[in-house]
């Protein structure tokens, strides 16, 4: 009963926030709504007894991904008027993509049959432990492959954005610390009116 009330509360906030993401004009507000959606989704995960997924969702999506979104969006200076014109032009394409995704989701949801009330894991084992067990035994290979793909993406991002700036003056902390007074300071006798050379 109480859990039901809490579920409907969070579910309503999730849906309203998700609508807010696509409908508000200001794109920073839009990202903030996205963050709210993530947070209430995490709350729904907790209600389902998947506290590990909830913690990871908050940590990864809210703590890292959405913050980077916010960074980028805050730094961009976009004119809203021109964006609106563009939006009308791409509307058919967007609708088409949306329909395809909707179709796929309907197909998948009708294919999978989940017993109502079935728990994700046996209730006596914490699901953090259970996820760890399954991930490193049954799904070890897919897990490792996913890790390698992520690593490739990471290295790719570094390679794409790396510029070796020859002219940049780099600072070497160890060299700086190794510097002594004798190397750094020189006493000179300066004749009046001539200046030091």
């Amino acid at each position, binding site marked *: *009963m*109480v859990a039901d009330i809490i579920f409907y509360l969070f579910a309503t906030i999730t849906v309203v926030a998700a609508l807010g993401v696509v409908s508000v004009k*200001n794109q*920073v*507000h839009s990202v*903030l709504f996205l*963050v709210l959606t993530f947070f209430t989704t995490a709350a729904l995960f907790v209600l389902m007894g998947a*506290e*590990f997924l*909830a*913690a*990871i969702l*908050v*940590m990864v999506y*809210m*703590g*890292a991904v959405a*913050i980077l979104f*916010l*960074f980028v969006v*805050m*730094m961009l200076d976009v004119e809203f008027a021109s964006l609106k014109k563009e939006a009308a032009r791409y509307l058919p394409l967007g609708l088409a993509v949306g329909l395809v995704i909707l179709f796929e989701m309907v197909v998948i949801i009708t294919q999978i049959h989940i017993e109502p009330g079935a728990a994700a894991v046996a209730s006596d084992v*914490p699901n*953090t432990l259970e996820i760890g067990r399954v991930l490193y035994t049954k799904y070890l290979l897919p897990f490792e492959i996913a890790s390698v793909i992520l690593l490739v993406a990471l290295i790719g991002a570094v390679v794409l954005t790396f510029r070796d700036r020859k002219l940049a003056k780099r*600072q070497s*902390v160890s060299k700086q610390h190794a510097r002594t007074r004798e190397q750094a300071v020189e006493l000179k006798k300066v004749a009046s009116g001539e200046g030091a050379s």
Partner: protein
Amino acid sequence: MSEILQTILPIVHSFGGDLFGPMLWPLVWTVVKIMLLLAPVLLMVTYITLAERKIIGAMQVRPGPNRAGLFGILLPLADAVKLMCKETILPKHADLKVFFLAPALTLVPALMTWAVVPFSPDLIVADINVAILYIMAISSLGAYGVLMAGWASNSRYAFLGAMRSASQMISYEVSMGFTLIPVIMLTGSLSLIDVVEAQKDVWNVVPLLPMFVIYFISVVAETNRAPFDLPEAEAELVAGFITEYSAMSSGVFFMGEYANIVMVSFLGALMFLGGWLPPLEILSFIPGLIWLGIKAGFLMFVFLWLRATFPRYRYDQLMRLGWKVFLPVSLFWIFLTGLTLHLFGMA
């Protein structure tokens, strides 16, 4: 302590159950527990501001604030009254909704994390089995308050401060999380009570001393404290992301900052310094709550000590330290811990 609790709790429960009915009572009881937790936390938050001025005053051979009450004991109260009576100045081009949401979003995560902090084996609001993950998840939300404050203020100083602060918090969160992983590996559990109980023989600070040092430096950087207080570097950015805030709205930011300091001090004491366990078995007549207070208090003192001692870091040095020193070292230490546990068959 626990005997008193065991005698009082059933009486409270039966009384409350009669008064509110079995439906409403668990909710009311939770709210009561939250209040009982937040009152001392907020008291600590207010008094650490006084402690800061007093300690730094003593370190600089001056008396510090001593006018309000005996030894200035009423100063936090006077500060609060002052902040509430001041006029709140609103920037003309600010995004007001986000502007007012930002201080709240700084303070709320800082207080939310306290829900899972145990003060003794049975003094805890919510004993969940992913406590450490919960703390890491919630504390990563602190960056939103800062970013939103900087953006909504519509001021260059505030925006630059927010950008610096958010990237600093994200960077050091990574190394802070990685320093906690060896502790979790040694314990084999994500519950803070288990973590403390596992330190019965030897505190985690002994086998994991480098991790403790990195943890402490990382949390100093993550709470934006000196010598890493670049987001509010007054010499270059006026007051960073707080520039446009005045009166109580800036007061809430400071409360959030100090609540975070108290929080990470308690977390450090629980994770590395044995929590409520006494250092020697002979000293166990002193209650665990006092031991935890002493340990956390010491870490808070070090926070203030650092501020009085070190000059501010340069921004690129700060980033270098986080990504090029702490990250590899803590990753290596995770590997080393795993290898040791495997070799000695303890995992």
